[in-house]
């Protein structure tokens, strides 16, 4: 009669919850976002999602087959990674990008580190950053309905007012999965299902908010704060990326610290950083600290905590976290205040140096009342005939004895390929262009960035014309013709328009 029945250690019953269910929950939570993405970004978005998910699953399948491991694709975590990656891509990317990204995310970030549960960073986000670094230009062409446009946050950075509704619905320019409403809905679903906990999303969004209020420069102005919080992938990161249990701390206190850390980084990157992809890098950086946080912050079991009556209202972790936040905040603002004057001086010096570069004859620069008045009169752009060019400032160059030797005009042109360019044009007193210099240019390396090379920008030097013309074919002979940088006619055109706007601007005040 012995060994009649199965023997094992208790508990003899298990919950119905499996890894598969956990992953399916994430897929369900992302469904509204994906549907709205396809709705607003078209069939191409669907292709990106399908390809990304399929190649993620295929990669894991093949890896397991080749390395003779137990097949793990049935846990559906590869599908989640594929979907997450697709939702963080622009819809117009070439179709090999989602495939490459998924292969990288699954193979390098997940499988090679030991598979599910062992990756150090979030695979989807790492896949995205891999694509960002490798294919920057394709990854930053954002569009909606097939029309490319600057993202809400890029527009916000230029001081424009943003409509909230498109951000909420997801039909603003951006990645496929950008509907704030759908992401919130999915996040709430996951919270209710226990797939994620409130700690990370709350602490992360709150910290980002606080940081932007203090350092964003607009205070509590909702016109600035709301797009910042709802757009730029913050919700996607807060509910789906940072909360990835594998790479975030596993304890409650650790998660709060993690959220605050990620929030601080996002705020810092958004306010001070140059990259539009603040969130991606902030989460990846925070992920690296996950194990350290788990190592340092271990919750005290209930029996070892100080009894309630002695500690009263505020629990200890909250106090510690508040102190950490305060210290970090004070340190940051302290550094800012201390360096503020220096920054201003440096800025002024740098500014003068930039002006000197294009107008070396000048010993100093002054302002001109007429020019200043015209500067203030501009609308959103200087004049529609010069595209998106807008005069930012104009300085009058004078020699040692105070005679006018020329003008230095700073022009911003939003028409460029990536978030606008800024250049300074030095114009001599007789209307001859002395030279131009870029103060801001974020174009594609090897293409638009070539505008900053002498071969292109020296074409303007020492030419006296009323207006330059862009020659896309190249091989120009006439003075007023500018050869376009091959493959970067948009950027080249934006530069020509900006220079022309500067010439037009000063023509009125020249003798």
């Amino acid at each position, binding site marked *: *009669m*012995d*060994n*009649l*029945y*199965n*023997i*094992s*250690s*208790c*508990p*003899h*019953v*298990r*919950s119905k*919850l*499996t*890894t598969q*269910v*956990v992953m399916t929950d994430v897929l369900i939570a992302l469904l509204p976002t994906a549907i709205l993405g396809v709705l607003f970004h078209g069939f191409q978005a669907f292709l990106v999602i399908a390809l990304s998910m399929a190649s993620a699953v295929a990669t894991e399948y093949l890896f397991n087959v080749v390395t003779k491991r137990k097949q*793990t694709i049935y*846990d559906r975590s590869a599908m989640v990674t594929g979907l997450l990656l697709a939702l963080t891509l622009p819809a117009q990317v070439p179709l090999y990008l989602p495939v490459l990204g998924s292969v990288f995310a699954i193979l390098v970030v997940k499988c090679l580190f*030991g*598979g*599910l*549960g*062992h990756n150090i960073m979030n695979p989807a986000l790492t896949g995205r950053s891999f694509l960002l670094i490798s294919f920057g230009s394709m990854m930053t062409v954002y569009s909606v309905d097939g029309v490319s446009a600057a993202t809400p946050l890029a527009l916000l950075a230029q001081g424009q007012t943003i409509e909230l509704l498109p951000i909420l619905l997801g039909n603003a320019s951006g990645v496929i999965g950008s509907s704030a409403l759908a992401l919130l809905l999915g996040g709430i679903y996951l919270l209710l299902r*226990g*797939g994620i*906990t409130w700690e990370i999303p709350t602490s992360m969004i709150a910290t980002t908010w606080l940081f932007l209020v203090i350092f964003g420069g607009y205070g509590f102005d909702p016109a600035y704060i709301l797009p910042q919080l709802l757009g730029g992938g913050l919700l996607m990161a807060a509910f789906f990326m940072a909360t990835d*249990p*594998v790479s*975030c701390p*596993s*304890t*409650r206190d650790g*998660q709060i610290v993690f959220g605050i850390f990620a929030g601080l980084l996002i705020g810092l990157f958004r306010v001070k950083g140059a990259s539009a992809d603040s969130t991606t890098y902030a989460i990846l950086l925070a992920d690296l600290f996950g194990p350290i946080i*788990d190592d340092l912050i*271990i*919750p*005290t*079991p*209930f*029996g*070892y*905590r100080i*009894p*309630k009556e002695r500690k009263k209202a505020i629990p200890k972790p909250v106090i510690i976290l508040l102190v950490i936040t305060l210290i970090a905040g004070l340190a940051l603002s302290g550094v800012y205040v201390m360096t503020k004057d220096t920054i201003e001086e440096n800025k002024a010096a740098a500014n003068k140096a930039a002006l000197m570069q294009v107008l070396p004859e000048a010993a100093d620069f002054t302002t001109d009342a007429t020019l200043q008045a015209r500067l203030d009169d501009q609308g959103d752009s200087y004049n529609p005939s010069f595209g998106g060019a807008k005069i930012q400032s104009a300085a009058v160059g004078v020699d040692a004895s105070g005679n006018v030797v020329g003008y230095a005009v700073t022009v911003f042109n939003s028409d460029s390929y990536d978030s606008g360019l800024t250049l300074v044009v030095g114009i001599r007193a007789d209307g001859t262009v002395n030279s131009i210099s870029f103060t801001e240019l974020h174009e594609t390396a090897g293409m638009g960035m070539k505008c900053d090379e002498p071969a292109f920008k020296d074409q303007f030097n020492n030419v006296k014309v009323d207006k330059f013309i862009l020659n896309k074919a190249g091989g120009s002979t006439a003075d007023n013709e500018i050869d376009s940088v091959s493959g970067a006619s948009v950027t080249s055109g934006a530069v020509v328009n900006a220079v022309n706007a500067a010439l037009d601007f000063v023509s009125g005040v020249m003798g």
Partner: protein
Amino acid sequence: MEIKTFHGGVHPAEHKELSKESPLTPLLPKGELVYMTNQHIGKPASPVVKKGDHVLAGQLIAEAGGFVSANIVSSVSGTVKAVEPRKNASGGSAMAIVVENDGEYTLAEGVGVESDTANLSNQELLAKIQKAGIVGMGGAGFPTHVKLTVKAPEKIDYVIANGAECEPYITCDDQLMRTRSAEIVEGLEYMLRLFPNARGVVVIENNKPEAIAAMEKACQGHDRVYVQPVLTKYPQGGERSLITVITQKHLKLGMLPADAGCVVDNVGTVYAIYRAVKFNEPLMERGFTVSGDAVRNPGNFWVKIGTSHQELVDACGGFEQEPKKVLSGGPMMGFAMTGLEAPICKNNNALTCLTVDEVEIAESEMTACLRCGRCSRACPLGLSPQLMQVAAIRKDYDRYEHKLYGLDCIGCGCCTYGCPAKRPLMQLFKTTKAEIMAMKKR
């Protein structure tokens, strides 16, 4: 009344409906009864009878082997068939006394005779409980007289009668409270005599409204005794969870309930105290649930200690389907038995027969740890099973013991129950604890 609860825990499917309404049916055993000499924590009892002796129901057959030990009586009248090692429910072998039932149930002298309780001194009260061989009937089997002998009785604030019955399937305490509520309150009053400053509280999960109502009714007119309904959640019936719910205090490693001003006893034990004090009746019967989807007619029984599990299954009409697993106790903390021959001991409260072995399924579904943290949220002690698991696998025992408080684990299995990756956490923690303890002894 406000329903209280503790932090963490899980809520497995209750399955109590299978046997909930079945009254405690007295079961008269046939054939032999087996009394293990080690059916309590502490030293085994020493047999005082030999083969061929005639014994009466309630007669002492094995004497406590020390203070932390308990007397054992025969629950039937009959002839001692053997004094030999037998297997108990957990599969271990120990000395046992086998009595052939003569079917007469002749009581020993003095047993079941109502006595005057008003003038009992505390010592006499404790002596009666000790003589009756009462042990914790909720599962642990710790001798009750030891538990009631605390250094500073005046520092005890609560005597907790544990009627939570948080294990799935088990319903015998529910029935006991419904039908013996006045007796439980009286037993509690006897216990309160030992603790001048204590209040008696009966803790019952809110999935037993009939028991709550019955106990509340029985408490009327007893100033020192009240009922505390608690949320239905496992492991509510654990000693620590009860103390936390009632006193808001948490025990740590090495602390006893008395350190938190509590004495905790199962309602079954309280009822046994009532019988012992008022009727001089030693512990020879108890409530018992036979349940599970394999059993034809699940039900509750009032069984003689020493009855074999097989007899109880027969009393239920046998198996409807061949079970895969039979558990002594419930599915959360009970242990799997290889067969049904083992006798029922004082601390056994249920037999659960399952047609599906969920552990087998879980083992086939095990995936890598997602670090989702559900285990930490489920831990009623506030431990971090996920981190403990990593430390245990790495054999980083220093971190396991000192940083993660791993030895505090009470083995309730909440982490293991809720783990979506189906990882055998509790088993790992048990072996790790054993390994650390072994290293300390060296």
